[in-house]
């Protein structure tokens, strides 16, 4: 996929975070006496994010985005595959070093912040756990950095608004100065006026701190706004990756096209997006081991379900499809 280095004036930027062929399979029992079945939650996912850029990760519930991100931050061990950050093998490092490389921000700050601890404590907690000095001063500085008034240092999470709580969660994630920030639906629980504030903050922090980010969301408009590149996942696999504007303007994979087409724009006059009817729900157990999207795909032929789809690479874009010419026609 990468061009030969000799062909370029400068060497391509090394990825700051590199997920290589991550796999995670859960054994799921359906019903009390059912036989356990294998659920391939993440099935050979590879992602690279260059330093200082943001990769958006989109896909519907159950596509494996959150499982993949748990593995990326080291909260979950993959069955196989590796994660390297800044050239370090994440799983070979002790936790104390891992936390200085990558930190998560979750969807619901109310659940992420202990309600009986004060904001200053919560923001400074990673420093305390991992041997920092000057904790209170640094916590104040970080609160200031994310736009949290330092008078809230002694407040409890319950006294903050939703937006302020998410700022506190971001401050806590950044206090160890990690290289990579993983944001899993960071604004989904927020109102739109507050969402704008948090998105602006993330964009500003990325620029000022040279942060590398993975931004997971089901809201495509938000992902387009904050991301340099976007990867689309379907049932554990990446189906397309492209620069954000290209992905939203000319999605190539049938599933990307379906997702982009189903997004409602806040402008009256557009008809409801047409959806093929009677399609089966995306049941991971029924998905074929070939192209997993084949049962829902309008362009699929029986053979699509038999073999994994080949990679189609174009300048700056890859997607995985058996019948690219039928899709574009």
């Amino acid at each position, binding site marked *: 996929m990468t061009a030969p280095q000799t062909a370029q004036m400068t060497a391509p930027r090394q990825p700051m975070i590199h997920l290589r062929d991550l796999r995670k399979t859960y054994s799921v029992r359906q019903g009390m006496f059912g036989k356990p079945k294998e659920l391939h939650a993440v099935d050979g996912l590879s992602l690279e994010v260059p330093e200082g850029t943001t990769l958006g990760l989109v896909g519907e519930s159950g596509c494996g985005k959150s499982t993949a991100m748990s593995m990326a931050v080291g909260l979950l061990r993959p069955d196989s595959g590796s994660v390297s950050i800044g050239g370090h093998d994440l799983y070979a490092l002790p936790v104390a070093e891992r936390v200085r490389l990558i930190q998560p921000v979750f969807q619901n700050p109310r659940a992420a912040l202990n309600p009986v601890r004060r904001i200053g404590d919560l923001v400074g907690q990673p420093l305390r756990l991992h041997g920092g000095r000057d904790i209170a001063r640094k916590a104040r500085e970080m609160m200031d950095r994310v736009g949290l008034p330092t008078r809230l240092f002694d407040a409890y999470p319950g006294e903050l608004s939703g937006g302020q709580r998410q700022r506190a969660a971001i401050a806590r994630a950044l206090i160890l100065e990690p290289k990579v920030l993983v944001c899993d639906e960071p604004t989904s629980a927020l109102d739109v*006026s507050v969402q704008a504030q948090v998105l602006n903050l993330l*964009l500003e922090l990325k620029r000022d701190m040279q942060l590398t980010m993975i931004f997971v969301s089901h809201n495509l408009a938000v992902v387009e*706004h904050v991301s340099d590149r976007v990867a689309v996942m379907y049932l554990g696999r990446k189906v397309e990756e492209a620069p*954000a504007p290209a992905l939203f303007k000319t999605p190539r994979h049938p599933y990307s096209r379906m997702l982009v087409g*189903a997004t*409602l724009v*806040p402008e009256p006059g557009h008809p*409801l997006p047409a959806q093929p009817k009677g399609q089966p729900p995306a049941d991971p157990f029924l998905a074929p081991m070939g192209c997993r999207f084949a049962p829902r795909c309008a362009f699929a032929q029986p053979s699509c379900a038999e073999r994994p789809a080949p990679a189609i690479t174009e300048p700056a874009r890859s997607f995985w499809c058996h019948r690219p010419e039928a899709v574009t026609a």
Partner: protein
Amino acid sequence: MTAPLLDIDDLHVTIPTDRGDLHALRGAGLRLESGKTLCLVGESGCGKSLTAMSLMGLLPRKARQSAGRFALMGTDYAGKAPKAWANLRGRDMAMIFQDPNQSLNPTMTVGVQMTEALRHFEKLSKAQAEDRAIAMLDRVGIADPRSRLGQYPHQFSGGQRQRLMIASALIGRPKLLIADEPTTALDVTIQAQILQVIAELQDELGLGLLLITHDLGVAAAIADDVAVMYAGRVIETGPVAQLFAVPAHPYTQGLMVAIPVPGRTRPGTPLPAISGRVPGLIGGVTGCAFRDRCALAGDGCASDPLPRHAFASGGFVECTRPSLSETRP
């Protein structure tokens, strides 16, 4: 001219709390014609769900309610015994909620839950009621409805459960359907399908639809009229095309620009966020509740009643800005 299907005016709901009375609705009003869709939009806490609860007679027991007019199909129930209004519920009006999991009883079969209201109101036999349920399930797109009547909610997917809710709500052939964030918990491709089902049934049955959403994309896609709520009042209404083209209230304008829109906002640039936060409604508010966050606020904004400017094209805005009449026909 026939009376509107739903005509609510000067609706107040007050909820006593430990810290004083919470004026959750402060004179809200709505008008909806048969066969039309009114979208009620606004951010959390603005009173949109409480309005729905008040319409369905599902307010918390300690809440106090009063209304200038509370009319369905020309009959004004303001000041009448709550029982008279309660008799309309489930027959002339029905409601679907955001999370079908919380509305469906996990221990009852789908068939029993769906036919409960029918057997109560229309005194149908079990077989007759089940025939109606089967026809309705088929209509909302659930395959093999006869065999699925005996199944439990957990045997349905998330999108199918919302279809079940729609079928259950419409089985009694109501005149008014209230839908509170019916697609918020669903994936985007499923959202489009569910909105499609609702829109088709609305046409067939001549339903008036009151749809509550925080998603301006949903409102733009299916509304005839939009009402914007802020801090317990409807601050602006109008036909969807006019309201989106020329939002008149500074809050509506702020909402419209705070969301990223592909093709309109420039990715990576700061979004115009609305600063500040919604005022607390304990003890009540005088004047415009938005004035502390409004760039245009002046002296006249602090006193009641606020001037209401009606537009020739329908709808109104409550704002002291004198130039309003020039913004919208």
